[in-house]
């Protein structure tokens, strides 16, 4: 009987922010957090069939622990149509601090189409001229070898091709578009630590900085994902 109840299937997308201490909630813990949040808001979730039913959720590319984001996306399925505005406000009422759900709309396309994420790297103190020049030099390198920890040990990869574009917007902030597709995922922590150690080598010091993710783009540059 249950199966018949679940035939209709609606797909929705959430855009949420992950800020403050909530940035320390890991990807795995986020799944649990959202499942419970949806249940608190009494959403008619679609559950997988079988022995251990669970709601189907797809998240945009994972964030390193501690990195904040203004745009995280979550696709989920329901067995009934939702009123997006009402549902959004219900969800916001039962969200933990630091998890700000900003938008809810019917999902179009797939999150796997996401190719790039935009990041802002903010320095805690301004860069001097020499450091600013070194930033240019960093990106002008034809290749940037970096050690990446994977399933089968540490291997060296060239991260330069995974940096689609960059801009020094002020003496405190760099914006960069980094590849986040599943085949080519550049960990933003790896990017910022490579950049900072380059500055250290060149100029003797680099100010501390934090990364913030701000948007997602498809390979064709369309920001389908607000």
């Amino acid at each position: 009987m249950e199966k018949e109840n679940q035939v209709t299937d609606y797909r929705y997308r959430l855009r949420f922010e992950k800020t403050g201490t909530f940035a320390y909630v890991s990807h795995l813990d986020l799944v649990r957090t959202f499942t419970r949040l949806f249940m608190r808001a009494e959403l008619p979730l679609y559950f997988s069939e079988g022995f251990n039913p669970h709601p189907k959720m797809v998240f945009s590319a994972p964030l390193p622990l501690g990195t904040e984001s203004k745009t995280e996306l979550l696709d989920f399925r329901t067995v009934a149509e939702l009123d997006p505005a009402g549902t959004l406000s219900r969800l916001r009422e039962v969200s933990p601090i630091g998890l700000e759900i900003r938008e809810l709309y019917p999902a179009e396309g797939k999150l796997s189409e996401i190719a790039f994420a935009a990041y802002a790297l903010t320095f805690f103190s301004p860069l001097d001229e020499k450091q600013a020049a070194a930033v240019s030099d960093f990106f002008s390198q034809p290749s940037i070898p970096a050690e990446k920890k994977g399933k089968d040990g540490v291997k060296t990869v060239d991260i330069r091709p995974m940096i689609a574009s960059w801009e020094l917007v002020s003496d405190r902030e760099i914006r960069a578009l980094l590849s986040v597709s599943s085949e080519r995922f550049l960990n933003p922590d790896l990017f910022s630590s490579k950049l900072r150690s380059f500055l250290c080598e060149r100029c003797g010091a680099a100010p501390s900085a934090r990364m913030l993710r701000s948007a997602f783009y498809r390979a064709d540059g369309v920001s389908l994902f607000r």
Partner: protein
Amino acid sequence: MELSELFPLVQKPGRYTGGEYNICIKDKSAVNLRFAFCFPDSYEIGMSNLGLQVLYHALNLAPDVWCERVFAPWPDMEGLMRENGVPLFAWESRDPIRAFDIVAFTLQYELCYSNVLNMMELAGIPLLASERGEEDPIILGGGPCAYNPEPLADFFDLFSIGEGEEALPELADLLKRMKREGRYTRAAFLREAAKLEGFYVPSLYRVSYREDGTLASFSPLFDDVPATVKKRVISDFNDPKYIPIKPFMPFIDTVQDRITVELSRGCIRGCRFCQAGHVTRPLRERTPDVVDAAARETYRKTGYEEVSLCCLSVSDYSGIDELTDRLLSWTGERKVNLSLPSMRADSFTKELMDRTSAVRSSGLTFAPEAGTQRLRDAINKRLTEEDLFHAVDLAFDYGKTSVKLYFMNGLPTETDDDVLGIAELGKKVIDRFYQNPNRNRKKPPSVTVSVACFVPKPFTPFQWEGQNSREELSRKQRLLGESITSRKIRYHYHSADVSYLEAVFARGNRTIGRALLRARQKGLRFDAWDEYFRFDDWMACFAEEGIDPDFFASREMGEDELLPWDFIDCGVTKAHLLRERRRAYEGLPTRNCKEGCSGCGADRFGECLWKKKTR
């Protein structure tokens, strides 16, 4: 350095960040009393503790009291805090707890004592009560180990004995009132608090010793301080006010992360080694109505995927069918699982199994405690072999292949035959599997035999018994290990060293405090964790203080001896405990309370469900 700057540097920042859903945040300026509720173990263990949820909820009911959580920082965090001068803080506000009015520690097991002292040191609070000044917080202890608070007497200003839901808010009220009226000094407050029911102020009692080290006398210093401290029992266990229907929810993985509702307090069984079964009497049950309503409300506030019913023995709960019916009427469609963790093999039914996911999730666990019927009778664990076989048959019918069996070594009157009986019982369970026509044919059976060491506990019929020496316990563990030949039986046993230390603390007196102080100087902490437990250092602490730990752990205490915890009235009388001890030696079990009241005395503390029903 700011605390938040340490987050990126530790293994699991989620232990310290706070901000969990459903925590209680209050406006400091509108609050008159700051209360730090400390759980002296890791965040993951502490967040799984129902008692913490219950008392956090009870204290925060008062708008002008703010109770916050504190856990023991894991050694990586502790190192960073010490290096950077970051004092121990409360998880909600991140304020240093040194400035709080009351700092309370829940004492769930003896091996957390070293963490208590370490946390006080990390907070910058003088360890010895006698060295604390007017500006320091009041240090309060409570929980199961407070039934013998004496080893900690030097460090605590007072202890709450028994149930805290009403006692702690009363204590908070007293403190607020005295501060408001300008009458507050530590001494004046403690003197008043000692008159509240269920509180014990160690500094108001004088202890003298005989030459042999036993107690000569234990008496209050003043006439208005009670000679006997009566434990507290809440006035109405069915009052939903005290059920924490808005439990805080950890983001990170912890031990217990689900809806937990208490069904009952007290246990009808009276196993003779079990402290919880005795000190939680009289017997009380919540009505299915109250439990179901609480579970539903908690579900609305949490969205948890599992409801767990908690009590000492779930299947003894009289309303179990009605309750599971009610719960199943709403949990199923919401994909919420129902689990009953403390099932007894002798009341394990197919019905219950159908209704719960206890079975589905993992294997089944039963606790025969002893390997032979003789010893099970002596300890009043009346589970028979047939009961156990009936239960495992059911489990095997269900396709289950793994069963866990809990036992204890070193129980009073235990012989080598009893030890060998454990191995035999394990083997017979394997045989039951192969005799079962409905058994799972894809997987071989596996029986885990897990053996703890008996630790004599205050307020049990075995409180006088000496613990087997560590050598004897190890010998029995080896004997059992050698007699288990089947590869299908997995054998685990607890460390005899750990159990020995538990016994020392469980039955210790005030002199133990000196060794605890030494242990702090030697940097001992997290004793409940194998990787940090340093037995030889503990032995050195005792030796350096001229304390013989055998005196507390292995010595049989005299029936007419004044015991360190005798000043507490826990409900069950000493006469009852003595009677039960005699029956143990005669090999006689005692009927359970449903079959008839045995006059334990706990009903003096409030109506006892089965005393009433069986009269």
